[in-house]
């Protein structure tokens, strides 16, 4: 298991390196970039040239890349030019990552909390009204663009009904102490209940919007895998033992049916990150997704580079975690994987 983990981590490193080179070369070959970002419409051809030289952007790409790697090794990934101009990209990541993580966790929790029971019920009542309804709604859930859903949710529940705040992570007037960067957690840690509650309220709508796709996937996978599992021979064996139905459901059906769901959760992190770009934009939620959207809009290359790399890294890492946790849940892999 350890070797396997190390191996995967090394692979991750390679992926990140290759990706960084590709991204770097690509970004550098594009027009615009830091110079335009820093100078804006005040720029003249002359000042442009000066700045280009000052920043070393006229050097060969690979020299620039090596310099970049050199700096990156010291934790310096460059300074934002558009998202939060002046802040270092690393700082932006550190600030915003907890926000997106908090949001994604809540979204996944919602997706699982709704998707799994619904998937189970739909499978058990296959072909029934509940089944058909939830299947259709999960299909619609996939077909509705996330940003549109986010928009509707916000318009209805925040703007029109006023139940939730419309934007951001925390209301302006709340004087919260920051400890971990996870606002809800911070609120709980410092016992600033109002801050925690307020932060949670800010999370709910975006999390629901973000949960729409993982929900559909979790629901359908749960349903399909429950359908598979209930037909498995070992469930029949369990029935033949005369076990009570809760025991069969818990121990024999769900435990096995959850295995594919666990894998999907890992894959969903990708969808979540992508969804976060859209949702955070709509809810002006200062997370990674918003930074990415702004970064694209404002051509903030250092931030884009770091965030895309981190997104890829996190995605790969979470999949590794999922695979490892899979091994923990599934003894077939656990007992064989250990060496």
């Amino acid at each position, binding site marked *: 298991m350890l070797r396997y983990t190390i191996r995967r981590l090394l692979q991750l490193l390679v992926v990140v390196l290759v990706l960084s080179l590709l991204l770097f070369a690509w970004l550098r070959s594009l027009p615009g970039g830091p110079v335009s970002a820093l100078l804006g419409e005040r720029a003249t051809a002359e000042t442009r040239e000066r700045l280009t030289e000052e920043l070393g952007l006229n050097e060969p790409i690979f020299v620039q890349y090596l310099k970049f790697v050199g700096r990156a090794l010291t934790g310096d990934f460059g300074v934002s030019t558009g998202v939060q101009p002046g802040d270092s990209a690393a700082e932006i990541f550190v600030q915003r990552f907890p926000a997106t993580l908090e949001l994604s966790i809540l979204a996944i929790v919602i997706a699982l909390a709704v998707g799994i029971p619904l998937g189970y019920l739909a499978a058990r009542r296959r*072909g029934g009204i509940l089944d058909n309804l939830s299947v259709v709604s999960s299909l619609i859930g996939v077909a509705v663009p996330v940003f549109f859903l986010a928009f509707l949710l916000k318009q209805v529940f925040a703007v029109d009904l006023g139940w939730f705040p419309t934007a951001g992570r925390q209301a302006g007037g709340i004087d919260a102490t920051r400890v971990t960067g996870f606002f809800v957690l911070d609120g709980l840690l410092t016992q600033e209940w109002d801050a925690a509650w307020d932060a949670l309220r800010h999370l709910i709508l975006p999390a629901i919007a973000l949960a729409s796709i993982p929900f559909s996937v979790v629901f359908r996978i749960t349903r399909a895998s429950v359908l598979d599992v209930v037909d*498995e*021979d*070992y469930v*029949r*064996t*369990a*029935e*033949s*033992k*005369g*076990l*009570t*139905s809760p*025991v069969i459901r818990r*121990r*024999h059906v769900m*435990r*096995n049916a959850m*295995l594919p769901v666990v894998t999907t959760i890992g894959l969903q992190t990708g969808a979540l990150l992508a969804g976060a770009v859209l949702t955070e934009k709509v809810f002006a939620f200062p997370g990674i997704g918003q930074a990415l959207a702004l970064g694209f809009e404002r051509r903030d290359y250092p931030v884009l580079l770091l965030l895309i790399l981190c997104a890829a890294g996190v995605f790969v890492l979470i999949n590794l975690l999922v695979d490892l946790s899979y091994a923990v*849940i*599934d*003894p*077939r892999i656990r*007992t*064989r994987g250990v060496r």
Partner: protein
Amino acid sequence: MALLEVRDLSVTFHRRGEKSTVAVDGVSFDVEPGQTVGLVGESGCGKSVTSLAIMGLLAKRGATVSGSAKFDGTELLTLSDRQMRDRRGRDLGMVFQDPLSSLNPVISIGLQVTEVLERHRGLSRKQAAVEAAELLDKVGIPDPKRRLTEYPHQLSGGMRQRALIAIALACRPRLLIADEPTTALDVTIQAQILALLAELVRETETALIMITHDLGVVAGLCDEVNVLYAGRVVERSGRHDLFRVPRHPYTHGLLASIPRLDAPKGERLSPIRGSVADNIPWTGGCAFAPRCPHAVDRCVETTPEMVVDQVVEGDRLLRCHNPVEPAGRAEQEMLS
């Protein structure tokens, strides 16, 4: 009174948008305590469905079960789900064909054995674990204590099947149904398992329904044999009689088509023509008619009824208009 009396058991499957299929079509047989009854027949003839219907394990939706299956005087088919759960595992045990897929892959063998003990014998975890180790030992699994903590994939095929048998026998059921328990196993392992089953049945006076397509297995184990074809019993007899004088052309064909280890070499096999796919429904005549070398016009005009065979001695039931003449008997006896 027999321990299990199955009368006119029929199972019909309905699938949305498709014709419903009659998988079991009026099967009747009895099982006495301590007796081993065989159900043989080709793939798809309804053996498993029969056993599942008795165990109440067919899905409620999509399957209609009619007829009666009385266990010790209690009608099983009309028992409530709850009552049935109380019986399964305690009075009725079952062993399935594929030992790997029949064990839950993510739960330790130990838990899979103890859960049935906890459920029906009200034992605590600890007691159940001790009992479970004894059980595994009894079915011939070496080092049972360690095996309890292992998972199915860590056991070999034979050991898995033993574990399944241990589970089925945990609460000393009065009736054990074994659905092709050895088909997935190698011959040497099959022999071990069959010997084990025979021994356990003898020891505990458990009644055993042995389901198989292997006539050899039946020949070695069963007191009485039911031959199924397309959902109906076509011939029933004690095993000695059956193998000596097969009366139904199907039984006869089966026996003639398998190569025997002890038969002289060079003899050509005489196969049954066609395949199971050539069955016709029982409604219009005999389902076996298209493949039957003995078929006469009557075979496709009227459905044959199960009748007591008058020609040979012994209790033989037969569903055929034109059975194989016992003349073959003399021939067979000469050969053996």
